[in-house]
């Protein structure tokens, strides 16, 4: 299940979208998600579909790889569809037992399914074409205005990138601790919920102690390398907009305006 989530997994390729500035991609993804909630009718549906197909084609990420991300939300998707299908009042098509399917319900369910699916696909284009580091960099810079509101933007993005580095290490460590306790006869599987929760103690205590130790060590190592917050820091890979970014901004703005226009005019 965890392995199926493609959000947050980078797919290395050399495409126009890969080369865009992460801020551009963040903005475009946001506009696209907004457009999914704004669009109405068949013309709007055609517009969002066309945009998605275009983005997928440009990203050079295999479609099959992208669709894998949908598995993770399959349950949510089905529940939403069922709710819309059966609980929307309107003109009845079929009725059996206490359930009623209406025309409106069918339409709502269809559009809701489209919205959710496109939302996942659209945002996974962002994460599949942007490395986690670029993403945090992009967020840091895009959110910089919030610094004035005393939001510690630099610290938050530093925390995110450190978390990204340490997640695989801690997963590996969990595995090692589990094996060490299994070797002492620990049982993580059988028993009722309370017993299971109790059996996690021998796993969680060493894991927390180790995580705190690592955090301590890391803080010291960062200090030793002259880290003192975001002030006066330079960047090895500073973010700079290129011509393609301007084009991408204009395109996404045009697209969004188009979707709104379709809604207002039709």
């Amino acid at each position, binding site marked *: 299940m965890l392995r199926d989530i493609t959000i947050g997994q980078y797919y290395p390729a050399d495409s126009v979208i890969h080369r865009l500035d992460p801020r551009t991609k963040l903005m475009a993804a946001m506009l696209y998600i907004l457009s999914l909630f704004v669009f109405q009718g068949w013309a709007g549906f055609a517009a969002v579909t066309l945009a998605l197909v275009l983005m997928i084609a440009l990203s050079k990420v295999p479609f099959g790889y992208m669709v894998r991300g949908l598995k993770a939300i399959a349950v949510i998707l089905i529940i939403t569809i069922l709710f819309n299908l059966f609980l929307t009042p309107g003109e009845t098509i079929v009725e059996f037992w206490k359930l009623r399917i209406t025309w409106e319900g069918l339409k709502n369910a269809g559009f809701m399914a489209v919205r959710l699916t496109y939302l996942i696909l659209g945002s996974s284009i962002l994460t599949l074409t942007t490395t986690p580091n670029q993403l945090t960099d992009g967020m840091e810079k895009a959110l910089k205005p919030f610094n004035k509101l005393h939001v510690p933007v630099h610290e938050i993005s530093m925390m995110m990138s450190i978390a990204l580095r340490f997640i695989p290490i801690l997963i590996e*460590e969990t595995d*090692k*601790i589990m*094996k*060490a*306790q*299994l*070797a*002492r*006869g*620990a*049982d993580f599987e059988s028993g009722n919920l309370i017993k299971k929760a109790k059996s996690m*103690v*021998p796993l969680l*205590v*060493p894991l927390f*102690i*180790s995580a705190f*130790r690592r955090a301590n060590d890391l803080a010291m190592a960062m200090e030793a390398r002259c880290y003192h917050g975001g002030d006066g820091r330079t960047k090895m890979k500073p973010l700079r907009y290129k011509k393609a970014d301007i084009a991408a901004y204009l395109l996404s703005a045009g697209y969004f305006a188009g979707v709104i226009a379709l809604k207002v005019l039709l």
Partner: protein
Amino acid sequence: MSIILDKVNYVYSEKTAYEIHALKNINLKIEDGEFIGVIGHTGSGKSTLIQHLNGLMHATSGGIYYNGQDIYDEDYDRKKLRGRVGLVFQYPEHQLFETTIFADVSFGPKNQGLSKKEAELKAFTALRSVGLPEDYWYRSPFELSGGQKRRVAIAGVLAMEPEVLILDEPTAGLDPRGRDEILDQVAKLHEERNMTIILVSHSMEDVAKYVERLIVMNQGSIMLDGTPGEVFAHYQELEAVGLAAPQITYLMHDLRKRGIQVPGIATTLEEAKEAILQAFKK
């Protein structure tokens, strides 16, 4: 009593881009009461091998027999096997979790279904046998030094009264005295109780000093298997795969090349000293 491995293979992440053949056709017989050293690089398969011996890892193919019983049999109690083949991992920090040392060491026997009293009795014996002074027993395991933590970790496994004790690099990160103390303690367990010991180590000097039989792993296969003297006689093959014999063994070769007739293959300091004394007597 014995452990037999019959054509054991283990493949990580089978049929993916990350596929690694970690164990290749391993045939091995470990007799009761042996003191075995396992050496090899990081990634040579030695850690994978020892985790098969107590059933923590399941071979992709091949069979493992403990005392003549197939441990992969459906009705074989593999949880019980872990109590009989005790495995102490490299970092004690991965297993210490209780508030007191004594409670931590009781964890294993309690898992075996023993009563509190029985479990504590076993913890008592185990802590005694690793030589940790009694005034430490009710302290937190997290306040101990590296060497003491390792003793507690070993006691935590010994408390299950295993017939075989496997130690994965028990001396990593310890200072010289700490290292000697741990290894002497392990050797004592072997001598006094005739316990089968399998010691995984990076140090040629340590294995040469303590073990009776040495297994060299390389790229998932057993490359050499014999007494330390027999194994280190192949020092050129060891070097070819990036391992080395103890400095002492090289010294003996150098001396012979220069015409000093030192007898035999020395792998430890005492043997070398004897050999040199003999050569000079003539």
